[in-house]
């Protein structure tokens, strides 16, 4: 197990005041919050910040943690000495670092280091304090997870087996993570950021209560040639200068797997989108597919290629910088 330097994580000195710790946490939490920061790694950073703050904001936990002294460095191998926290009392309310619905994970993923020191918190129960009080019936917890699908799945519909890491609580309240496989129909026409509700696939109900639901938030794998905006899809179409000037016909692959012929009119300008109506993500009102032309300039390597460009030069009285004249 690796030691975690919570002071270093928050970027504060060991002698920092509570106010300094809070301010450092707030600043970093805003920066790395996974709803705000979409960069890879932000979520992991956010969890570490949250864990560090959970310890340092709590006087008892901080005092116990401080007993390790400042010789310990981030990432050093670490085993807590026996009875290390003797004489300290802290309310063992645990800490929920994660969020429902981030990265296919579920809440309660504090580090092994944190758990070895402060124990694993009781799993949150969806705001209902849903312990099995006798005679009480509650609907089980709703679970959230993110799944990545291919854009083609949204065009054609698909059947996919997905794995989720689910928290499972045993009779003594201990939480462990189990892998669960689900065979799910991906409906045609689903879009990024939409949620698929699978009724009864969430947490088990309490008493006679029904099971909760599972919400799968859809995200598309990034695609090499398409980008997606809502139900519209964009594809870049590089053209040679002569194709753009004289017009041509190009084959456009669609995400559905078919090929469309697109007529490029003479005098096409880079960036002027051409709409293929109804060829976006399908639905009652389907999105559109936009071909975005760009002009690719061939390099002049050989003598004859250079001559060809010189012929251009002679043929045109063309100054693209005419407007720059003072």
């Amino acid at each position: 197990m690796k030691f975690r330097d919570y002071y270093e994580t928050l970027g504060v000195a060991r002698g920092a005041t509570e106010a300094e710790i809070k301010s450092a946490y707030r600043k970093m939490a805003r920066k790395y919050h996974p709803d705000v920061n979409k960069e890879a790694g932000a979520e992991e950073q956010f969890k570490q910040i949250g864990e560090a703050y959970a310890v340092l904001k709590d006087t008892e936990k901080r005092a116990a943690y401080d007993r390790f002294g400042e010789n310990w460095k981030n990432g050093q191998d670490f085993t807590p000495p026996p009875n290390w926290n003797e004489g300290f009392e802290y309310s063992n309310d645990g800490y929920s670092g994660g969020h429902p619905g981030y990265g296919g994970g579920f809440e309660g993923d504090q580090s092994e280091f944190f758990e070895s020191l402060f124990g694993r918190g009781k799993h949150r129960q969806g705001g209902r304090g849903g312990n099995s009080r006798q005679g009480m019936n509650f609907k089980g917890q709703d679970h959230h997870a993110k799944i990545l699908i291919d854009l083609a799945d949204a065009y054609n519909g698909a059947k996919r087996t997905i794995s989720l890491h689910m928290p499972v609580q045993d009779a003594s309240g201990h939480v462990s993570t189990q892998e669960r496989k689900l065979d799910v129909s991906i409906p045609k026409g689903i879009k990024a950021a939409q949620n698929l509700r699978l009724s009864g696939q969430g947490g088990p109900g309490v008493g006679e209560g029904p099971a909760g639901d599972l919400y799968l938030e859809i995200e598309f794998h990034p695609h090499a040639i398409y980008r997606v905006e809502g139900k519209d899809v964009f594809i870049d179409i590089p053209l040679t200068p002569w194709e753009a000037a004289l017009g041509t016909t190009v084959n456009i692959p669609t995400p559905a797997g078919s090929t469309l012929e697109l007529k490029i009119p003479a005098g096409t300008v880079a960036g002027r989108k051409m709409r293929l109506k109804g060829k976006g993500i399908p639905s009652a009102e389907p999105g559109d597919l936009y071909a975005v032309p760009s002009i690719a300039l061939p390099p002049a390597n050989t003598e004859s290629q250079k001559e060809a460009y010189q012929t251009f030069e002679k043929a045109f009285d063309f100054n693209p910088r005419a407007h720059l004249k003072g």
Partner: protein
Amino acid sequence: MTQTNITWIEGAVVENEVHMTIVELSHASRTPEDLIMTWVSEGVLSPAGSSPQDWRFSGDSLRRAKTAAHLTHDLELNVPGVALALDLLDEIAQLRARLPRD
């Protein structure tokens, strides 16, 4: 040869087909109903229907409620702060989607 029959689970697309009551939204977003009512009065969520019992939340209500719950919990934003952050996040998402991929 054995043949296994897989039962594929059919889901409902929340944004298109599901119209949640305040009880369902509260359960799904793990947010107390009174906070959801505050969000509605502040314009964070716009359900159809006139009274909380009749409210039906559709479209991106679930996503907005989840994000609002995270921001409230993690950054201790107040309700107007959450409303502003959600509007700005929507705007950033739209702008980002317009950027060409490198």
